């Protein structure tokens, strides 16, 4: 990255003084080096701040909602929005944006036509979005890692079977899977709405993770294939180390870099996937989601742009921050990156 080059080069030039005795030559692990690089990367740090901010919002959403004195309760439409058909503000809130000034009771305004507080919806939307993305990332990483390690190390028939499974799952488009699973679950749990809400929530996480592990599995398999022929692995095998220990203690540490990269780039992908499915009406049910707001707000864009901006800014900020952070981590971990 060019800007990092600019920052770092003066430092190298400055480094003319002889290596003094107080600067001990200490052995640093590759991860320590990468971490040091990351700390010096301003973009990475800014992104990390944003991500941590969103994480805090997600964790403390109920507390924040309480702090701002907003909630998800339904308001009577005609008490809070204009129900007079002859009026030009038909359907728009009677107080607050877009027609009236800032309303301290509802800092983000309220939704047109139904009067739900936008801030509360946004906060809980962030919570659901991040929770789903995080869970999906953890589960899919675990599946991908395990299968990749086994396939790469075991080889033979096991490798072929797992590779076939990987190809099979790669052939399933997740939107189609979600589209076909949604009505089945609806049908099954329709008469228990509370259970249905829970089931759709976890089934979404399930779909995202079950259809999201394949790339990591392939990557892992390839890495392990080359690693298992290395001398130190052979040595470990010769001295009779159990396979599980070889995998966990000898091979896995060498895979940390690609795993971290896969996680940091997977997270934003799941955030957008969740919002996309909610926009299509097949996401989570009975819980707030940014995608739902975007779906409702597109029809109001001309008359109430703020309503659409709020979830869009939320998603863009979070996804861009996560992606930049992922990129930076990738660069920091890659020994070949020129700096």
């Amino acid at each position, binding site marked *: 990255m060019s800007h990092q080059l600019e920052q770092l080069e003066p430092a190298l030039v400055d480094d003319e003084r002889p290596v003094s005795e107080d600067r001990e030559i200490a052995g640093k692990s590759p991860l320590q080096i990468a971490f040091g690089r990351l700390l010096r990367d301003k973009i990475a740090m800014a992104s990390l701040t944003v991500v941590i901010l969103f994480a805090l919002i997600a964790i403390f959403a109920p507390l924040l909602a309480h702090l701002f004195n907003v909630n998800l309760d*339904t308001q*009577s*439409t005609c008490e809070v929005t204009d129900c007079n058909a*002859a009026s030009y503000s038909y*359907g728009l809130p009677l107080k607050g944006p877009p027609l009236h000034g800032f309303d301290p009771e509802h800092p983000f305004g309220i939704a047109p*036509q*139904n009067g739900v507080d936008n801030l509360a919806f946004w906060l809980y939307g962030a919570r659901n979005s991040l929770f789903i993305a995080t869970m999906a990332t953890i589960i899919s990483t675990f599946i991908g890692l395990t299968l990749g390690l086994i396939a790469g190390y075991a080889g033979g028939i096991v490798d072929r079977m797992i590779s076939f499974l990987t190809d099979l799952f790669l052939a399933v488009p997740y939107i189609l899977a979600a589209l076909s699973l949604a009505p089945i679950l609806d049908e099954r749990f329709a008469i228990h*709405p509370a259970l*249905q809400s829970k089931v759709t929530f976890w089934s979404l996480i399930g779909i995202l993770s079950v259809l999201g592990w394949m790339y990591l599995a392939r990557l892992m398999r390839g890495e392990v294939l080359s690693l298992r022929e290395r001398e130190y692995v052979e040595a470990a095998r010769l001295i009779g180390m159990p396979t599980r220990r070889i995998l966990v203690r000898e091979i896995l540490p060498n895979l940390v870099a690609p795993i971290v990269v896969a996680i940091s780039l997977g997270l934003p992908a799941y955030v957008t996937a969740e919002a996309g499915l909610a926009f299509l009406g097949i996401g989570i049910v009975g819980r707030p989601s940014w995608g739902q707001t975007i779906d409702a707000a597109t029809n109001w864009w001309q008359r109430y742009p703020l309503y659409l901006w709020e979830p869009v800014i939320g998603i863009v900020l979070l996804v861009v921050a996560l992606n930049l952070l992922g990129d930076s981590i990738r660069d920091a971990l890659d020994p070949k990156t020129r700096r």
Partner: protein
Amino acid sequence: MRLTKPLAVAAAGALAMSLAACGGGGNGGNGNGGNQPGGTPTYQGAGTAGSAKDATAKGPAQPIPNATSGGTVTVLYPSPDTGLATLDPSPGWSVTGNAIEQDLVARSLTTFRQDPKTGDMSLVPDLATDLGQHNADFTEWSFTLKSGIKYENGKPVTPQDIKFGIERSFDLGSLVGPGSQYSAAYFLDGDKYKGPYDKATKGQDYKGVTIKGNKITIKMSKPFPDMDYWGSFEAMGPIPQGNVSNPPKYGLHPWATGPYKVQSFQPNQQLVLVKNNQWDPNTDPARHQYVDKWIMKFDQDPEKTDQIALSGNQASQTTITTSLLAQNYADAKQKLGSRLVQGSQPCTYFNYPDYKKISNIKIRQALGYAYPYQDAWSAGGEIVGVTRVPGNAILPPGMVGRKTYGPIDGQQVTYDPQKAKQLLKEAGVKPGTYKVSWVYKKDDPQGVNAMQQISKAYKASGFVPNPIGVTGSLYDTWTNPDDKVNKSLNLRGVAWCSDWPSGLTFIPPLFQSNQLYNTGYFSEKSVDNRIKQIPTLPLNQQPAAWSDLDKTIETKFYPAINTGYSNVMMTYGSKIGNFNNDPNYGAPNYRDIYVKK
């Protein structure tokens, strides 16, 4: 007739009665609604939607003043209107489909003509020479087919073809439609004969229709005074016999008898109609053939269609849209002025409590007071007082002999949680213990919004709301007796539009025992008997009798909660000439439209 648009919300209400009066009082014509600056939408009142009859009307139809030939008209049907799944005349029973088929493609025994001055519809002969001859007790009707009628391919229409069309209307399989309500209920052997495709009656000669020369005689099993109206349905028209008309293929390209024929048809997506040169205007007293080509696009993005309508660009000048989003209403009113048309529609929305599960009338009445009419309308995307107006009588505005009344204690029912709680108390129900289960469309944001409003109001009224989200049409749930969701409900719904302006098309399908769309399973012997009795009364007493029965049902039993009458909101481009609402349907009157030069 069922509304094609799914029931996202049903709501009735308590706006000032002046609004309701506006919905029903106008005697057709183009009254101006509202007096906002910047223009007023044209309001086309219900009038007496087709109660007039003119048995002597002859073709050709009166020319429209200043009308010019040529041009292409595009009609956009915004979601959730998915338009037509089939063009087969026999099953046609939807507002969007019937208007297109009857106005442009498929001729039948009789049809409707719009009075250019008043906008009223009157029944006129179409393929028949008159409106039918009947015997004293309406058990035998005969129609004489005009000679020289041809299909689009030049083949002549024979009386046998009309008989075949009638036979097809008995089908309860893939062609099930309005015939199940009328042919099967009133025609001879309607309970036994199941049409030419059913295994049991295949190849059987239907004895109810006899042909002598060009004269077609239909025998009834019981008095059917409305046969002339039933004759206006495309199902009561000619169908070529033999394999050519086998379903479902015939539904893709039926042989046109009207002024237009099918050029291409993608079910639920697009229909293109072009001029049918075999149509003889001299035989048709109601239709015109000014436009060269019709392009009908179904299931369009509503925001997109609104923007097209509002843009005024060249493409939009010859475009018609059949609904408008609530949020664009004010904008459209200002920009389009009289090209925004509020058209009345003979439709009523109901919440239908399960008559067996909620057997106490006080609880049903409490449900009436517990419904947040305005809030649910507005949250559900209706324009309060415009596309949905408060209702009380079962029969919607425009029906002959209709009277309004107060369903409970002589009063209009409005949202009143206190009254609901009081009624619950009188019924011996502790507040906060009575569960109300109903379904809503969870994949429709506005359906969800309305559900939230309704839940809140039910809770405030002492009920325990239990909304159940489903995907797909709510009718799939309501009309399926084996559906486990349906079994768990105690509040269902239905939106009904009259097939013609007689109570016969409204009260029997909804309030007779064991009818498909009687979703509340309402069943009272006295009502059933009266429903059987009214068609046998002298013709001029029937409208009042239906209206009295309407009042009796709601005041004595309150089986269904009226959640309002609907109006449609349509727009048309600046080059569209003579655009009018067809108050029979609440759809554009395609027959008389032309493109300005």
